């Protein structure tokens, strides 16, 4: 059984459990880990396929065309939006998912997760902020370099 077949089998199993209000993680942790591994791979490839969104956002921010606050919301919106798109495809067991099953750019996945954390921690209110504008600028710069060099 190849990766594609394994993935769709696990996905179907997980969706059936969800319909019965059960969790794959609790019912079969090993299967859950395997499905998660495939899903992360797909998600990272999906994120990469939408890189233009991130590039435009980072460019605008670095050119001071938007505030740090707007950048934080903008980034989170793209990141979450792609996650939602994947969720929808998984719920419908879309065959298109197979196109994104190829080995992924795991470094990109870690980088995006880290930037999301910085965006989430940013606040214009210094009393509660755990990340500042400089950190977000660094993030935007690294993001741009990473996405443009490939």
């Amino acid at each position, binding site marked *: 059984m190849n990766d594609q077949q394994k993935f769709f089998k696990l996905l179907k199993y997980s969706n059936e459990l969800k319909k019965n209000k059960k*969790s794959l*993680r609790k019912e079969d942790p090993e299967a859950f*880990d395997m499905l*998660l*591994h495939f*899903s*992360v791979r797909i*998600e990272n490839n999906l994120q990469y396929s*939408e890189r233009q*969104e991130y590039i*435009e*956002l980072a460019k*605008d921010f670095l050119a*001071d*065309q*938007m*505030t740090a*606050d*707007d950048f*934080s*919301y903008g980034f*989170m*919106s*793209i*990141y*979450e*939006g*792609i*996650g*939602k798109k*994947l*969720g929808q495809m*998984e719920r419908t067991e879309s065959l298109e998912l197979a196109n994104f099953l190829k080995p992924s750019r795991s470094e990109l*996945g*870690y980088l*995006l*997760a*880290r*930037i*999301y*954390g*910085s965006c*989430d*921690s940013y*606040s*214009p*209110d*210094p*009393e*509660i*902020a*755990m*990340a*500042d*504008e*400089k*950190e977000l600028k*660094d*993030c935007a710069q*690294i993001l741009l370099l990473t996405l443009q060099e490939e």
Partner: protein
Amino acid sequence: MHQQIPEEFLKAMDVQNQSPVRIERNSMQEIGDNETTKSHNDKTRSYAVQLSSSILVIEKINESPIPEAYQKQIIDQLSQMKQQKEIYYQVITEESSSTLKYIATQIRGGDLGKSKSGPGARARNDALKAAKNANKPKAAKLKPGGRFFAEAWPSNPSKRSRPAAANRVAQQFQTAPAEGGNGLFGRFPARPTPDPSNPGCAGGPKSITVLSQSKSSEEGSAREITAHDGVKGKLTNKSASHLTSKHGHAVGIDDTLPPSPNQKSGKYPFADIRTRITKENKKEFGDILEKILQNSKTEPFPGVSIRGIKSQGFHSEDYGGEGGFFIGIHEEGKFKGQIKKAQPINRQQLEILRKFNKID
């Protein structure tokens, strides 16, 4: 009549030098109004003064010449401002952090949010007025007409939503962010990163700074939530605002702000995720956090690292993103005992959480 304009303008500059935040919009506006009343044809001398940052920008909107004498006076004023700025820099880099805070407070207006007459309050009021005007079509007509104004908003229309005078100055002179960040002129160490595998975006080595704990009035008014395993977390008013605004949509609070007129239309418009901060929304968000934390199905992640800070984590599959919803309570540092994370997570974040017991 032509001389009147720069004279008034220079007077305003004097006021500016007394309190270098911005030229008062009202006084500039008044000049403009007088001009318009006296002669509708005399619209050849318009100045836009923007002090949104520490640099004074003077734009001459139309093509009429400015006498050399006035140009020189303006340049003199500018150089004085530059000197003042340098003095601030010098003081800030030499003096103790308490002095720094004092200066920052003065620059921000000191009385921001209290007095109605201080420069900070005036800047804020002007920003609010400008915000109101920005929504009115007539405001757009006034600009090219050559009236005098000092913009409280960024002149670039693609810059969104932040009153420059009230905010950018404050940001520029900001002291260290509450927990980390490089703060002003890089004097402050980077955010705490005890976890070497979690170096932050820049990736370089970062020092560990666990700030002293202080009980603020914020904490006094915090909502305390006890999780199903007995762990307690406080949700302060400010954190509730922050988290509701960023993640309210993820737990089903359907009250997002409308898109800004300047917003680029993308596939994932960011206004869609910015939840309106209201008392009701904050309460609802707090209620949902309580529900998640008290649910026995919610999985605890003791000792989870949140951006390097040791914390108590909780993960629910029933809310949030495709990977569920994560809540984190700091166990150390300035925000010890506070709920500082309450966000949806995707598959990648879930994998990182499960593999490495950490979340960024």
